């Protein structure tokens, strides 16, 4: 059985609980054991803005806690994944690691480069595998046309993810979507960033970026977007609603987290197991199209 330390990050367990709920459900369903570690703190990605050292120390602190338990880390947030993976890269430098460990020891910790970090989609792709996922499918989602959105930190910086995917022409999420039976739609702005990390600084920039992708998707006849990061989710879902209210523009494009899509295909209870009722944009039409005919 695969066993991982679950790294929830800050945003998922407070603002996008359906991501946590559906991730826990699919992992249990597929035999991935998740261990909760109470001592985990913020991954440090936003602290990098003010102090590179502070960001690195927070990341190293988390890595050390997982290493102490002898576990690799499973992340849900793409940005946490990037922050921790980049820290692992930087801490391969002995001088840097020694400096960090001198400080970690003061709070009783040490990091020796043993712990690795994997995003949940990567665990599904590499540990569970596309073939096994296909064999587990219980519901027919073949009528769904789905637009994937990868999240920048899922593939970049490329050096931190040892060949998981091609950042310019990514394929893993397309394959994970195909495995559920749904059809992954290719589109021009596939790699456009959600802008989430600029959101606290300039909402205008984020609105323009979100709008650009939504405009592109408007004529692709899709049933939903599928994302694999809660920050991307919030930008395309909650901020889409804000934009559409301003522009009086309809209809909204529903947004699912990948574990929600997979969970639906695996036969999970849409509300209790997968939190479909917590999504900002209604999923009723999407559910009806799959023939499930059940309102949330």
């Amino acid at each position: 059985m695969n066993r991982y330390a679950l790294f929830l990050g800050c945003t998922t367990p407070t603002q996008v609980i359906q991501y946590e709920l559906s991730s826990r459900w699919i992992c249990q369903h597929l035999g991935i054991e998740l261990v909760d570690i109470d001592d985990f703190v913020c991954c440090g990605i936003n602290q990098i803005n003010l102090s590179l050292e502070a960001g690195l120390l927070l990341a190293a602190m988390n890595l050390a806690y997982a290493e102490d338990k002898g576990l690799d880390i499973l992340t849900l947030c793409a940005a946490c994944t990037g922050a921790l993976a980049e820290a692992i890269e930087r801490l391969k430098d002995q001088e840097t690691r020694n400096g960090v460990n001198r400080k970690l020891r003061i709070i009783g910790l040490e990091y020796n480069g043993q712990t690795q970090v994997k995003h949940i989609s990567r665990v599904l792709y590499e540990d569970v595998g596309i073939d096994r996922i296909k064999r587990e499918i219980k519901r027919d989602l073949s009528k769904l046309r789905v637009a994937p959105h990868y999240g920048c930190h899922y593939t970049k910086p490329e050096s931190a993810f040892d060949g998981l995917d091609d950042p310019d022409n990514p394929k893993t999420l397309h394959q994970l979507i195909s495995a559920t039976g749904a059809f992954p739609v290719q589109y021009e702005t596939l790699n456009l960033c959600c802008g989430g990390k600029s959101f606290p600084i300039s909402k205008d920039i984020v609105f323009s970026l979100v709008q650009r992708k939504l405009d592109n998707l408007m004529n692709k006849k899709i049933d939903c977007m599928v994302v694999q990061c809660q920050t991307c989710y919030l930008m395309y879902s909650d901020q889409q609603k804000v934009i559409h209210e301003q522009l009086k523009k309809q209809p909204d494009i529903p947004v699912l987290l990948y574990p929600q899509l997979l969970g639906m295909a695996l036969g999970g209870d849409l509300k209790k197991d997968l939190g479909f009722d917590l999504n900002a944009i209604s999923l009723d039409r999407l559910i009806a199209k799959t023939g499930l005919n059940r309102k949330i």
Partner: protein
Amino acid sequence: MDQDNKLRKPVQVSKLDPKFRPEVLKHKSAGGLNACFACGTCTAGCPITEVFPEYSPKKLAKMVKLGMRRDVLSSRFIWYCTTCHTCEQHCPQNVEFFSILNVLKNMAAKQGYAPSPWIDQTQQVMRTGLIFPADEELVKKREFLSLPVLKSDGTKAKRLLKFTGIAEIKSPRKILE
């Protein structure tokens, strides 16, 4: 916001600071700056530039090279980056512009130009370990969904961050528009 068609003021050589570039280069992660040959591939692929054309990684790199210390460190632009890493992914010289930008932001923060959202988030991490607090409503919601209780203790993070000077960063200066 878009002033691309307006003629800009000439760069005043007497106001350039020749110490600025070496100071930036001193940081390991900004070491690639000298390899930049200003091709503009970074800017061509930047999502911020796509929606806000006045923002340009190439231009910021050039300003650092020229020694335009105050213009760079007090600029709003250095905080606009979405951290997508596309500039680094495409750079033919393997310049890590994202890392250079982080060095610039760190320098600006020390001089009092940090935007308040990043300061507030850091303070929150030192209080609870996470950037968002768990209020009563959330605690109930998680309990209803049978999700584990969220820990909220920033004591160790605070002790660790004390070494970095991040706790002392304040934002008294106004960032230039």
